[in-house]
């Protein structure tokens, strides 16, 4: 129900919130590329990485909310994939979705849309381009909230039967969501026009962005993962090496106990 709250900036003051939005965006892009290319070993590593990031940003509860929000499509995709490709491929596909959703949740929870657009502008990109991600991010929570309200209102009107596997009336719901997003877009356009957007090339930059240790570290780790994935593919051996060590420790403890 409250899925959209997972996508709103959390307003906390952790190291991730204070991080440079451009670095965070670069990290997001790197993870997106890595997720599309990686095998299960890399996916496990990326999942761990994003969970650590969520813990640092104090937004772990949002990840659980996101899982709750997407479990039905995951179940549908998972069952289709299981029939077509088998168990391990299904796990891989589900992990890919989870890593991407988690990364987006962490990014949107720690970056305000204005921060993102103004930092991109500082890099020299024109405002008409930098406003695109800002406005898109701003619209996501509204659209999700509208969708959830539409679904609930239609259930109460008896137009959607949620107990069915494929809910009846899903087309009506989509029509309402499209309609409300068009209305939202219209309002946004009016708001921009009212603020004389585009009337001048000069824009006021209110933020002073710095680079902290987290920015450098996360970017370095993600670049290393991508480089390793593209050129060496050695993470698998590190995993096996790590598993080997765990196995030996367990064996040693077992022999000690017995």
């Amino acid at each position, binding site marked *: 129900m409250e899925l959209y709250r997972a996508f709103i900036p959390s307003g906390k003051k952790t190291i991730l919130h204070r991080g440079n939005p451009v670095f965070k965006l670069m990290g997001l892009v790197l993870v997106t590329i890595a997720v599309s290319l990686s095998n299960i070993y890399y996916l496990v590593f990326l999942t761990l990485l994003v969970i650590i990031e969520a813990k640092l940003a104090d937004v772990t509860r949002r990840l659980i909310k996101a899982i709750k929000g997407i479990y039905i499509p995951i179940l549908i995709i998972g069952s289709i994939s299981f029939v077509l490709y088998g168990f391990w491929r299904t796990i891989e596909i589900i992990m890919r979705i989870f890593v991407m959703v988690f990364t987006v949740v962490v990014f949107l929870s720690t970056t305000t849309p204005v921060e993102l657009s103004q930092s991109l502008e500082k890099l020299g990109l024109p405002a008409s381009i930098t406003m695109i991600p800002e406005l898109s991010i701003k619209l996501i929570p509204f659209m999700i909230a509208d969708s959830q309200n539409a679904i609930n209102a239609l259930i109460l009107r*008896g*137009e959607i039967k949620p107990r069915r596997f494929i809910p009846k009336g899903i087309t009506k719901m989509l029509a309402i969501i499209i309609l409300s997003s068009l209305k939202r877009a219209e309002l946004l356009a009016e708001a921009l026009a009212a603020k004389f957007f585009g009337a001048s090339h000069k824009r006021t930059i209110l933020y002073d962005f710095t680079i902290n240790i987290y920015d450098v570290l996360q970017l370095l780790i993600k670049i290393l993962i991508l480089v390793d994935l593209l050129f060496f593919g050695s993470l698998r051996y590190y995993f096996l090496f790590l598993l080997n060590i765990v196995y030996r420790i367990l064996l040693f403890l077992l022999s000690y106990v017995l």
Partner: protein
Amino acid sequence: MIELKNVWFRYSTNRWVLKNINVRIREGFTAIVGPNGAGKSTLLKLISGFLKPTKGQVYVRGKPINSLNDLVGLVAFVPSTPIVSLIGPTVSMDFQKAVKSFNSKFDTKEIVSKLDITHLLSRKIFHLSEGETRLVSITSAFLLDTPIILLDEPTVGLDKVFRRKLLELINMFSLNKAIIIATNDLRLASRAKNVIFLEDGSIRLAGSPSHVFYNPMFQRSVGISDIVAFCTKVDPIMKINSRSLLTPDQLALVLDKMFGDQQC
């Protein structure tokens, strides 16, 4: 009809939006009033099943509400963004679907002509203005013929004529239905049978409009203490009432005269 027992609610933050709400709402017109951020809309969403209480329980007709499915056919809800509750594509088709949904006994034509909104019937939902969308979605909710009707800020964007139409609708149906509205419009709230005054997530006052409206705490909170003091002073001079205080209806009239179409 509706009962909230020890209801607490918070969103993802640690701040409690609603604190220990205990209230019983019966048939008739009930208005939930209070300053912005008091928890009016959240309370309405809890009754509608859109949200689940963090603690406590909501009962409708004596049955505990655990999911939205428990309220299908019982509750009609018009949220603050009314477009999401309309199916369309045209107004008349939306009304027809509303009547068919739960085999409502209402005659659409009769209600539409009473409200004088026949000219809207052939219009597409997308082409309606904000006020028209709100009035259409409210009418649609009434046509569902559910015993409970919940309206979130129903007068926002409505002009005087549409507001009067809304009142006509409420008067038409309030005898055998529980109509609950969350509003900042005191003129509408003054017409209610019961008023619940929420502040900072708690129910401060509940009772008849005169009981709530003449409480100094309420007047201070909604910023009408000066107006009421003024009215009380001019009241004996104007000979409106033999008592020194105005009735809620007269107060609404004075507010109407002072603010015109503005919300107060």
